[in-house]
């Protein structure tokens, strides 16, 4: 059997025998039911309006407010944190600058101390060298004097031995002068010869 044709015959919406068959009541509005519906609907609306909706709305708005507050709060905290961070960065920079400054100053002080020490050492050395040179000069001079005296004495002695006589003071003097004139002492004092 064709099901579509069957449904068409099984649901005779209009033709319909009055009692059991027929479906015209499906589309026939009933006043009584409409009144019941209206009453039920109005009561439902009043109950919901009074007891349900305000609380739900309030809760939702409270939540929305809470969320907005939380967002604001976190925003504020973030800004604060950023501020603190910036401050710390600034301070760090300052500290670094100061450290650099200190190091530079220390270095400068060190350099100065070193230069001073070098200078001092140099001066001292020169002083010592000068003193040593003076000593050497003095010693040389003294040595020369001594050699000269020695030579003179030797000369006198040698001459006495050769001449078998004691030289008087005039002879002696003359001899010495002659001998000394022949000896070049300049080599001893390290100075270039004068003649």
């Amino acid at each position, binding site marked *: 059997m064709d099901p579509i044709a069957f449904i068409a015959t099984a649901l005779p919406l209009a033709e319909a025998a009055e009692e059991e068959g027929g479906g015209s009541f499906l589309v026939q509005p009933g006043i009584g*039911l409409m009144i019941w519906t209206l009453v039920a609907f109005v009561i439902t609306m009043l109950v919901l309006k009074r007891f*349900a909706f305000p609380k*739900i709305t*309030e809760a939702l708005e409270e939540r929305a407010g809470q969320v907005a507050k939380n967002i604001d709060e976190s925003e504020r905290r973030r800004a604060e944190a950023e501020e603190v961070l910036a401050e710390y960065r600034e301070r760090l920079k300052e500290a670094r600058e100061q450290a650099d400054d200190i190091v530079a100053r220390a270095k400068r002080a060190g350099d100065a101390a070193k230069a001073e020490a070098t200078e001092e050492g140099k001066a001292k050395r020169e002083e010592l060298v000068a003193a040593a040179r003076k000593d050497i000069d003095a010693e040389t001079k003294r040595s020369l004097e001594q050699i000269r005296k020695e030579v003179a004495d030797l000369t006198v002695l040698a001459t006495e031995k050769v001449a078998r006589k004691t030289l008087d003071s005039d002879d002696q003097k003359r001899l010495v002068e002659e001998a000394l004139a022949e000896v070049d002492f300049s080599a001893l004092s390290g100075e270039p010869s004068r003649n």
Partner: protein
Amino acid sequence: MSTKKKLLLVFGGYALLMIAIFLIFGSDGKNEEFQPQNEFKLDPWVDIHLGGIDLSINKAVLYIVLASVITCVSMVMIANRMKAKPNKTQMAVEVIYDVIRKQITNDNLNDKLAAKYFPFLATLFFFILFSNFIGLIPLPTNTEHPVHIFGMEVPSFALYAATANISIPLVLTLVVWVLYQAEGIRHHGFFKYLGTWLPAGLEDMNVFGRAAIFLIEAISQFVRLISLSVRLFANILAGHLLLLFMGGGLAVLLGLGALGVLTFPMAFAFYIFEIVIVAGLQAFIFSILTAIYLGEATSESH
């Protein structure tokens, strides 16, 4: 084995089962006694007649009262248990509530009207939604085919929906219609409001043309009475008829038990379709159209 082969095997086996049942039980011939539409017939349970109006309590009245009570109790319970950290039920209600508040109410109405009509629109939505849901729960309301338990006549379990009766969507539609016309007249004044029915851009047209268009617009206003109510009524009725036929009605009518093998699984599919999509969708459509009509009646141009 490929998926295609598996599917073929399943359907083949299923067809074989159907044929086997047909061979065993055969056909009882067409059943003339069973009238499926009588599932929706309203027999008065308690006769009440007041001043010529039949206020008898019947199945539909029971369903309406049930819908009303369940809507009130569940919404008030949910409202009283609103928590800062919502559970799943509260979350679902909040989502629906948000849809009603934003998409249905605030998108179509200005702030003043939205505040005024939100309770009405939300009640419409929840009332229709709960009506539709209750309509999908089997309740012992079928007095036409009672079951006899220990000699007592007990109504059998059946599906019925208040919204599958034209009276209920119709009266809700009438309320909506009267409300939005009244709101339009209050906002514009009577004649100016009728003037807004004419679409914009007809200023150059002659009088007869404008009159003709006004007539069409006026008819369309009255057609809304039918379209809004019948949309809800017909959707729910069709859904219930489908469930009735698929759930065995067709097999009984035709006396073909074998057909039941084919239709019964489809009843589940339609049931899920009805409860997940149709119930909520029709409630949403009814209330958003109400909001749109209200918004249109009070807007400056048509």
